[in-house]
């Protein structure tokens, strides 16, 4: 596994980030089931809702944006734990902290890799769910846009939570407790945008707010994540 060790020529920041992203994606490719499970979970949670609520298509179409977004949120939560877990276990997290490059940027690269491995496939699956719930056309486009903007924000905010709970027993349940309240605005604006679009109204406002949330998360979350990692590793 020489390709997974820190290369000696990772001297510039951009090279280190590129290497880190590539390495994390490679790790995902070698443990395909880890990457597939959250996606299966996403599909299953969404498809279990009609069983609980009833098969009436009018009702289902109305609550579909919320269901799809809650399923995406829970699937992300499930996948988050892996972000630092194996790095913590094998000591590469310490190497990351000790590296001469600024930790928030390296963390950002890891979050980006996490999003590529879980957020992006989720977006590719979303049209399938749209089909199940009868969302098509413009609302489906809006749904895809909210997922495209919202899931990176989920990964970014989630990284703070994972960093705080890394190495803790029963960290997964705790992670859910910490993150669900923080995910509320993303959920509200995303599901709201799709719902407004489904009613034939412009959803620009909510999309802009979602974009603002993403920018805020991208600016602050890596700093908080690296601070949390340093505390947990101290």
């Amino acid at each position, binding site marked *: 596994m020489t390709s997974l060790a820190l290369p000696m020529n990772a001297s510039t920041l951009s090279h280190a980030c590129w290497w880190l992203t590539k390495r994390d994606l490679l790790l995902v490719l070698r443990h395909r089931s880890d990457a597939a499970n959250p996606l299966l979970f996403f599909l299953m949670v969404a498809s279990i809702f009609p069983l609980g609520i009833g098969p009436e298509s009018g009702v289902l179409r109305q609550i579909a944006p919320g269901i799809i977004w809650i399923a995406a949120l829970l699937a992300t939560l499930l996948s988050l734990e892996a972000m630092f877990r194996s790095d913590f276990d094998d000591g590469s997290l310490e190497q990351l902290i000790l590296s001469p490059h600024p930790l928030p940027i390296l963390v950002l690269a890891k979050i980006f890799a996490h999003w590529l491995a879980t957020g992006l496939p989720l977006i590719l699956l979303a049209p399938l769910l749209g089909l199940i719930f009868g969302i098509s056309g413009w609302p489906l486009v809006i749904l895809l846009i909210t997922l495209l903007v919202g899931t990176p924000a989920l990964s970014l*905010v989630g990284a*703070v939570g994972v960093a*705080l*709970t890394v190495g*803790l*027993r*029963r*960290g997964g349940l*705790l992670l859910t*407790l*910490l993150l*669900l*309240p*923080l995910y*509320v*605005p993303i959920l*509200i*604006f995303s599901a*709201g945008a799709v*719902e*407004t679009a489904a009613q034939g109204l412009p959803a620009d406002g909510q999309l802009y*707010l979602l974009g603002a*949330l993403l920018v*805020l998360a991208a600016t*602050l979350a890596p700093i*908080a994540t690296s*601070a*949390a990692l340093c*505390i*947990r590793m*101290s």
Partner: protein
Amino acid sequence: MHYLPFHHRYQHLASPKYFYIWSGRLLPWLASITAILMIVGLYWGLVVAPADYQQGDSYRIIFIHVPSAWMSLFIYVVMASAGAIALIWRVKVAEVIGSASAPLGASFTLLALITGSLWGKPMWGTWWVWDARLTSELILLFLYLGYMALQSAIEDPRQAARAAAILALVGVVDLPIIHYSVEWWNTLHQGPTVTKFDAPSIHWSMLIPLLIMATAFTTYYITLLLLRTRSELLERERNNGWVKQVLSSS
């Protein structure tokens, strides 16, 4: 007077020993002020203040409900500020203040939610509505509970305090966002419940007891906070000389 950085000017208070001694002197005063304010405020609010022309006597729960809602937000801000101080200057007392505040803040939040639903039943005919303020207050309770869960999950108290401090800071950035997101989410569906809550203005005969109660709640919180911080400091510093010294002299 020349400029002194924060940790020099308040160095005394940042030291557990001096904080313990100083807070011990302050406590009887704070407790008496709290008792006086509480009695005056409750008597004024529950007996002297006139009944509301619309809501009758049931509005009087405002004297408990509104101060606890204020405290729920105020304590979160205190927690986050103490967290920032703990992270930046590594002040041990600030770490303890953060962890001692969390259960108090959670209690005030719960009190605000319970009194709110008791008030909501006669006014709105239901215990709970997904109103903007109620929902964001509920999420605030979840934030407190998450903070406490994280703190109890990490064994080393100093590490727990610093990790929880980061969570409190993230939460304090998120609080206004949560508030506005919930407000806009709500107005899409049912506007008027929000404005129902915002009484246009409150008569001074109700406002004064309300402010007294708010002050009483604040001093009550500070009193409990000092008590909790003192006992926590004794426990954490039990191997330090000053604890023995202070305990034997009292």
